[in-house]
């Protein structure tokens, strides 16, 4: 059953790749890292959708987490003389020589989702990434607005210790709530970005804070930890989303399921659509010679229970999250 689904998925991918070249205005080569997470799989699916929408002929090369595969893919895209190259870099260094080759061939390179070492700034056209500090700030601002003037004790489920995303999402949130004296993070522990650890840590928070009576809101650095925390709250006889406010980041399908059930309040989207803005930037550059800014920041949409979570769930569940 599983293999059939895999086969079907790869067959669809092959069909998508087989769009005849003369129908497309642009041919773009995309060196994708791999499919290590649900978000990455969704990014690949959305890139294909956006390409079809714009009649772009998109060639995707899966690097399976290896830089040498990405370099090979870029060289082959240069040999095929594509119109542009998208690169989701697996690491931040070691790109200079291959990017120079692309530059000599006059093929613009756009970085997706991640940035590379500063020494290579003139070697790429632009980088389309999300700002994880901003994501934390959006979450913090929503909470401050929702709580108003009431005193509010917040517990925080951090991402993996040492991960830059976790540090940035914490920083953004802390800065946003620092302006409000009534908001206070009373407990903060790492849940390693996983459901199981999110649940375990939330269980301990509930016990340590008077059975959860002293907790007014939970902030989780990703939705998966929040899904685990929601289970812990329910098992403790609390009503997540009502007794305790929840706000998390990523916008994976399962958090919308929880919103539909009234058990989650808000999430900040890390959009899987990095390719869309990149296509537009390349098209403008090719047609009118418009040089885009070095950094195109993707939108960090705030999605709450009032934003039709069922529709969000339906639109995201098929993307491979």
């Amino acid at each position, binding site marked *: 059953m*599983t293999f059939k*689904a*895999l086969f079907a998925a790869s067959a669809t991918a092959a069909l998508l790749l087989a769009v005849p070249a003369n129908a497309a205005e642009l041919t773009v080569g995309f060196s994708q890292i791999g*499919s*290590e*997470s*649900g978000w990455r*799989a969704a990014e690949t699916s959305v890139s294909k959708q956006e390409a079809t929408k714009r009649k772009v002929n998109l060639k995707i090369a899966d690097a399976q987490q290896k830089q040498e595969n990405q370099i090979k893919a870029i060289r082959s895209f240069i040999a095929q003389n594509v119109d542009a190259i998208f690169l989701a870099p697996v690491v931040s260094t070691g790109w200079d020589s291959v990017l120079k080759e692309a530059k000599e061939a006059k093929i613009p390179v756009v970085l997706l989702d991640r940035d590379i070492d500063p020494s290579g700034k003139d070697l790429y056209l632009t980088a389309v990434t999300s700002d994880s500090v901003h994501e934390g700030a959006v979450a913090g601002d929503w909470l401050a607005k929702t709580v108003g003037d009431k005193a509010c004790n917040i517990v925080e489920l*951090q991402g993996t*210790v040492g991960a830059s995303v976790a540090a940035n999402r914490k920083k953004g949130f802390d800065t946003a709530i620092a302006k409000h004296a009534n908001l206070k993070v009373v*407990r*903060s*522990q*790492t849940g*390693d970005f*996983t*459901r*199981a650890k999110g*649940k*375990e*840590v939330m*269980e*301990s*928070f509930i*016990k*340590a804070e008077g059975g959860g009576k002293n907790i007014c809101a939970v902030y989780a650095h990703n939705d*998966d930890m929040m*899904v*685990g925390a929601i*289970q812990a709250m329910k*098992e*403790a*006889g609390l009503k997540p989303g009502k007794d305790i406010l929840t706000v998390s980041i990523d916008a994976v399908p*399962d958090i919308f399921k929880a919103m539909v059930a009234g058990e989650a309040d808000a999430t900040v989207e890390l959009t899987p659509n990095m390719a869309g803005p990149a296509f537009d930037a390349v098209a403008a550059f090719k047609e009118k010679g418009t040089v885009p800014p070095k950094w195109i920041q993707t939108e960090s949409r705030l999605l709450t229970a009032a934003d039709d979570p069922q529709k969000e769930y339906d639109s995201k569940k098929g993307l*491979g*999250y």
Partner: protein
Amino acid sequence: MTALVPRRGLAQILALVVILAVDRMVSPQFFDLRLQDGRLFGSIIDVLNRGTPVALLSLGMVLVIATRGIDLSVGAVMAICGAIAASLADSHGLPVVLAAALGAGLVCGLWNGFLVAVLGMQPIVATLILMVAGRGIAQLITEGRIVTFSSPDLVWLGNGAILGVPVPIAIALGMLILTGAMVRGSALGLLIEATGGNARASELAGVGTRAMILAVYVWCGVCAALAGVIAAADIMGADANNAGLWLELDAILAVVIGGTSLFGGRFSLVLAVLGALIIQTMNTGILLSGYPPEFNLLVKAMVVLAVLLLQSPKLSGFAGIMARLRRTKP
């Protein structure tokens, strides 16, 4: 009683009591218990409940280590079996789901046992193969995403209660009794210890060492499968990337804290489970303490060091010499 907890268990019991006392200090409500939706609720229940996967793993691991082996693949086996259970949960009944998951664990155990007992590979290398490949297999089953399910039967395994006791705790207790009855109710335990103590001598004395080794890896696989099913039932989903990640190391640590030597021979099931509880009591205490997460691993390492020093024969020998010196002084 002495049969169940031998005198050498004193260090472990002492360590557990000390850590429990520290937990009580950092969190005054540590021993509070109440009934929530027909299920016992409190930090001490969290310790037992969260300790279940490692306790189950240590039950299999202690037997493997007693034969002078080691099984690094248990975390990956957890991921495989959890993924199988989650994929089947909504379309099949609980008996089918359990049979498929435990069957997969059994096959994984047979594979490890075959490599070690029949092909004579070094256990650490032989089980490393499945440790690496197993997580990939689990990701193939789940297609890289978190497979969720809503089957109330399987959810009950993780979140239900029997007479107020959470089901995972009851399962772990049941497995401890079952394993104990098997290895200590017969000569099996002795034969396993003989195999680990000196395989060649045992072989010459007529012990089927090859069958013993095969059997312990199979049992280890079954225990890991059960742990994987419980871990998946707990979060109502199978997370192939993270389920059981690094738990093989916790299971080995539990066995070592339980006083079983990595060089094989004598083992104790009860003390291995006690080792798992010591690890979890410490983990829960760290979470309750409110220290910044950067300290988690440091605190854990210090406590483990202290517990192991407590058991070190050299150190107790040193203490003995000091005591004798003091006695001989006028």
